[in-house]
């Protein structure tokens, strides 16, 4: 027995030396817990119940997409075993489910768990365990911190990137703007505001003349709009969620305030915001986007959009194509598949993370043309480009170039 152990030790030592000298050119099969010759176990946590259950459809879309991949033979012959649990958007439950996935189901990594508070709850745990927490479904900026949290990565453009883009636009087009900001009083609203201020830089203090915050519990934000109008601002930065955004658009028309209205991407949905607020009230609103809009006729003959609609028709008929979450789930699942393809036969947690941080100009075809996914060991923000759009008639019209929201980008 000791002889074999020693032999094994020598052999592995030799291998390490060999591997180090030859680089990673050699495709050796290497596995961590959760991956085998036939299977890759992926964990996921979603709020299928509770206050945020509307987002649960993201998990269902991903499950449908992975099933489609499995039916087509899987990735390098391995089938994806997608284990998705419900946390009801309650952080203690998220911890329980994450531990169940990592310690009991023994998944290779956790993918696209949803929500800022639930992901914050397992942030430290995942990094202590060195299990990747990949492409979390939240726009908070803190997920891009490879130095302190090398096992966590976001996916969608973070809120600060987006508001930096608005800042850039304003500095260029309206350098003497008097800006009024309305934001939701939570992490999401404050993140946006921070990005806007940083984007405006030294001019932030002089350009932003009014800041108002509202609570999600307020039935209406009309009084904030009236107050902001009275400041005489000529730019209105609207950092609100869909229900409040619709109220704001309506009220602004009602009080005959005519500022340049900048609406955050969170509330840029035609179906749930613009239409209820009235097309005539929404002309000229500016927002930013990174995904193609299903309702936009310019993508009618787009191959990427066709592929997505085919997927919906064949593999996920219960999905609502107008629901933005479905298209997000589809895009993020495609990104995941790309990472797993890049991993080849080295399915260790370290390599999954390495490949996730090695995406070069990757595109899922539901992204706007020109938007690409790029990561590096020091950049854990996969999507940081958006394009500005202006509302005209009954739809958004893209304008200008794809802009990067990265610092100095």
């Amino acid at each position, binding site marked *: 027995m000791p002889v074999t152990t020693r032999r094994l030790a020598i052999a592995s030592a030799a291998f390490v030396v060999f591997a180090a000298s030859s680089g990673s050119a050699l495709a050796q099969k290497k596995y961590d817990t959760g991956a085998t010759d036939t299977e890759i176990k992926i964990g996921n946590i979603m709020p*299928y*119940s*509770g206050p945020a259950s509307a987002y649960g459809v993201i998990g269902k879309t991903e499950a449908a997409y992975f099933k489609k991949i499995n039916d087509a033979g899987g990735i390098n012959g391995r089938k994806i075993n997608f284990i*998705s*649990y*419900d946390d*009801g*958007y*309650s*952080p*203690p439950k998220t*911890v*329980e489910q994450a*531990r*169940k996935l*990592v*310690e*009991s189901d023994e998944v290779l990594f956790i993918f696209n768990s949803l929500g*800022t*508070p639930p992901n*914050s*709850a397992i*942030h*430290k*745990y995942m990094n202590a365990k060195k299990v990747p927490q990949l492409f979390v479904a939240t726009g908070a900026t803190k997920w891009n911190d490879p130095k302190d949290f090398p096992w966590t990565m976001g996916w969608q453009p973070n809120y600060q990137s987006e508001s930096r883009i608005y800042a850039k636009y304003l500095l260029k087009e309206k350098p003497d703007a008097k800006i009024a900001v309305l934001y939701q*009083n*939570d*992490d999401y609203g404050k993140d946006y505001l921070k990005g806007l201020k940083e984007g405006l830089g030294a001019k932030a203090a002089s350009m932003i003349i009014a800041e108002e915050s509202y*609570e999600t*519990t307020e039935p209406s934000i009309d009084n904030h709009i009236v107050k902001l109008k009275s400041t005489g601002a000529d730019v209105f930065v609207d950092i609100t969620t869909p229900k409040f955004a619709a109220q704001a658009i309506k009220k602004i028309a009602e009080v005959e305030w005519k500022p340049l209205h900048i609406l955050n991407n969170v509330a840029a949905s035609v179906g749930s915001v613009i239409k209820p607020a009235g097309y005539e009230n929404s002309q000229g609103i500016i927002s930013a986007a990174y995904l193609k809009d299903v309702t936009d006729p310019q993508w009618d003959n787009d191959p990427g959009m066709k592929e997505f609609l085919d997927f919906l028709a064949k593999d996920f008929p219960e999905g609502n194509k107008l629901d933005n979450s479905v298209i997000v789930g589809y895009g993020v699942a495609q990104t995941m598949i790309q990472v797993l393809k890049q991993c080849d036969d080295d399915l260790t947690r370290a390599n999954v993370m390495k490949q996730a941080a090695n995406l070069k100009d990757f595109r899922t075809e539901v992204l706007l043309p020109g938007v690409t996914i790029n990561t590096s060991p020091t950049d854990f923000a996969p999507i940081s480009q958006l394009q500005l759009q202006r509302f005209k008639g009954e739809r958004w019209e893209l304008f200008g170039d794809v802009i990067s929201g990265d610092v100095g980008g």
Partner: protein
Amino acid sequence: MAAVEDIVTEAPAVEAVPKRAMTLGTGTSLVMLGLLLVVPLFVKNFIIFQMTMLLIYGVAVLALNILTGGSGQFSLGQSAFYAVGAYTSAILMEQFNVNYALTLPIAGVICFGFGFLFGQPALRLSGVYLALATFALATAMPQLLKLGYFEKWTGGVQGLVVTKPDAPFGLPISQDMWIYYFTLVITIAIYIFSVNLLRSRSGRAFMAIRDNEIAAAAMGVDVALYKTLAFGVSAGITGIAGGLGAITVQFVAPDSYTITLAISLFLGMVVGGVGWLPGSIVGSAFIIFVPNIAEGISKGLSGAVFGVLLFLVIFLVPHGARQVAIVGQQLIGRFRKN
């Protein structure tokens, strides 16, 4: 007002439980204790974590049991006390570097005071009205925790990450196992305290108030004092559970302590058997594991499955685990006779 009081006092919502029926026999207690001591040595860390949560929610349910089963007052606001306890521990540990073990008594004392003060206005209310007042407390709490004034300490919506303590004296056991035994010791201490409390003069006063407030007052029980005291003790114990919860979960955020938690605890108490202290652990198991079972049966309909299971339990054994225990005891008795 008089009519309302009549309705409330006429049919006591909580059935009188004789003192002796509140605990388990010595033999059964020892077996339970043995199991709780030995099982963690043979299971994965994840199971140990779940067992720790079982104990913590068990303590919180026990606290509610003292309030409702003991003094006959309802509360749907236990999540608020749990949150205050959790935040007290988390803030002391993270912002003031206090040792985790020391934060628990502080959390307990603060929550005791909080509960005692809340008990004062609650004196004027009884039955469903009290339940509503406490409900208001539970809905207000998550928002209070998000307030900008406290954000310096509470971390606002982002919450606070808590560092998990290592086993002391270089003991060769995992963090999870250490926290489990730490929690177990506290749980046992609280259990013994609660049993003795209910058997003492104060406990008798609680129960006298529960069974008939007017008779209790006539016999010289200071109704106001004992009612608020019951609130204080219950809140204090819930606060300790909250502190333990913060240490175990390593994270506190306003979204962790919503009204759902308060209702879960209430549910745990009913399923475990109102007024039967050992039932608290059974109720706690119910609120932790049954949602997981329901999710295993159907992901899309987990809520509905949970509802059906809950309905079955309430329909088949309306007195919860206590009823099952009594039936079990009778069966064993019959078996012995044969």
